[in-house]
């Protein structure tokens, strides 16, 4: 059952990703992107990473993509700019990136079993057992990794203030 669901979600995720590239209108691309993010959330659920799945939908599909939609609609893109991102250099670059990714993946698939992954899985199971779905992420985030976490927060704050300063400059 889980395997069948995995293939369904994987197919939707891949199809959505292709749709992002192939869709004629930017709003279509965006909806395909939402479909991809949604099926990734489904795959997270199959991996018992419920919290990640929820956050994936709330943050990416529910907040960031809505902002994208806003920008696309306000700028009314999709009429004259379609050629912009399809230049030769860009195509070459994407082929290189995709090739590298495929290489890494092929290397992992070729190996029979990965001991580090198995050990990691057991550690995650233990953490889930002890702290619950949300606690398994919150516990390390607010104890071991609290300094990097706070620094990330400050970084985001700086970005917000910077965006505001730039937006205010014109007026």
């Amino acid at each position, binding site marked *: 059952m889980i395997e069948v669901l995995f293939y369904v979600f994987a197919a939707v995720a891949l199809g959505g990703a292709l749709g992002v590239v192939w869709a004629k209108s930017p709003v279509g691309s965006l909806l395909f992107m939402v479909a991809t993010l949604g099926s990734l959330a489904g795959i997270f659920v199959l991996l018992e990473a419920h919290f990640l799945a929820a*956050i994936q939908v709330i943050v990416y*599909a529910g907040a960031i993509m809505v902002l994208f939609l806003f920008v696309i*609609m306000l700028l009314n893109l999709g009429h004259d700019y379609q050629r912009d991102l399809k230049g030769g250099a860009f195509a070459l670059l994407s082929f290189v990136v995709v090739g590298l990714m495929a290489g890494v993946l092929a290397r992992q698939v070729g190996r029979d079993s990965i001991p580090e992954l198995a050990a990691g899985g057991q550690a995650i199971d233990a953490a889930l057992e002890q702290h619950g779905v*949300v606690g398994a992420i919150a516990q390390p985030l607010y104890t071991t990794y609290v300094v990097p976490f706070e620094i990330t927060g400050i970084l985001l704050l700086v970005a917000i203030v910077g965006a505001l300063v730039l937006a205010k400059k014109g007026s």
Partner: protein
Amino acid sequence: MESLQPISGLWLLITMSLKVTIIFGLVVLVVAYSTLAERRVSAWIQDRRGPNRVGPFGLLQPVADGIKNLLKEETLPSTASRAFFVLAPMFVLVPSLVTFAVIPIAAPLPTPVGVVDMIIADVPIGILYVLAFSSLAVYGVVLGGWASNNKYAFLGGLRASAQMVSYEVALGLSLITVLMMSGNVTLTEVVWQQQQLGMWFAFPLSLAFILFVISAFAETNRLPFDMPEAESELVTGYHTEYSAMKFSAFMISEFGHMVTASALMATLFLGGWDLPGTWDDAFWHEGQLIKGFSQDGVAVLANPAWWKTVLTFCGFAAKTSFFMLLYIWIRWTLPRFRYDQVMALGWKVMLPTALAYAMLIGSVILVLDEVGIRWGFSYGLALTAVSGAATAGFIFFLDRGRTIIGAAGQSRQKVSISGISQPATAGD
């Protein structure tokens, strides 16, 4: 003898299918009848009769409306983007109906084959599941407005998305206090901790309750926050171009959101299916259905019964109906906000208040835990006192001396018209 084990195997599959069918059917039925309730209650408030021709007391009106909407001609504006125009009603309808799956509706029901939980899916992320799907609802609204290729519809869609994104922040922040109290995000545990506390969270978290209710009104686009469909400015906003069943889908989703939000408010702040007293308490703890802990921390087993399930379901239905009635009551009582007022309230009042309140409750919980007060009634009373003070301050601030001081205050607020420049009279 009834088994007190959780249900499993083939019976799990059967009860699960039954639960999905019955609960989903019930939600759709409630949605259909809440459209009738809205018209009847509004008529009652305005001293009219309301729809009373179809069936006894107008009870078949939703059926008649459904048939009418199915048979009406569907229009597709020639300038609309066809695919998105058709997709938009689906995008609003699905999130509004699936969120009910994580809300527990009654005490567990004992059967000869095991105990059946009265919830479709007790997922470990509970409330986050609701937030995730309600954050997806905005797509339907925005797409509907944009795909119609109508400036009023587009403005309505933009307003809706800005409003929903803004109030989601206050909604989430007021939820934080509930999650701090319950220590988990599943709604079954939220109900359980309210039973253990001996009081519903509406009292120890009164300010969060008020903030949540206000945000829920804004999230569901109901008056006084129905800017997206302000008919005096935008025709009917994002669904201006929709007709027949597609229009109906938007209406169903609006009422579906109301039902879900009402059930959520009842679960988070009014104890869900819990009824006063400890006779109905039940929670799965380490594979056993327990009722509570004795003084020395030993689990006391619960004794579920079918009549408890029925009674608690009635309690849950009553609480949910109360919030549904509140929605309708407020819609026909208050005028609409101005758009800048909606945004100012969201960002300048709700957000800072919710943040400060989360800090306050967090510190009080810390102090109470450090002092060593046991999770129980006195714990709740201490929080109620602190929250009551915070709520009084919040209401006093929002009121700005208009209602609380009363008529005496009104007479002091003399309106000066000397500042308004008078138009020059002709011939001067």
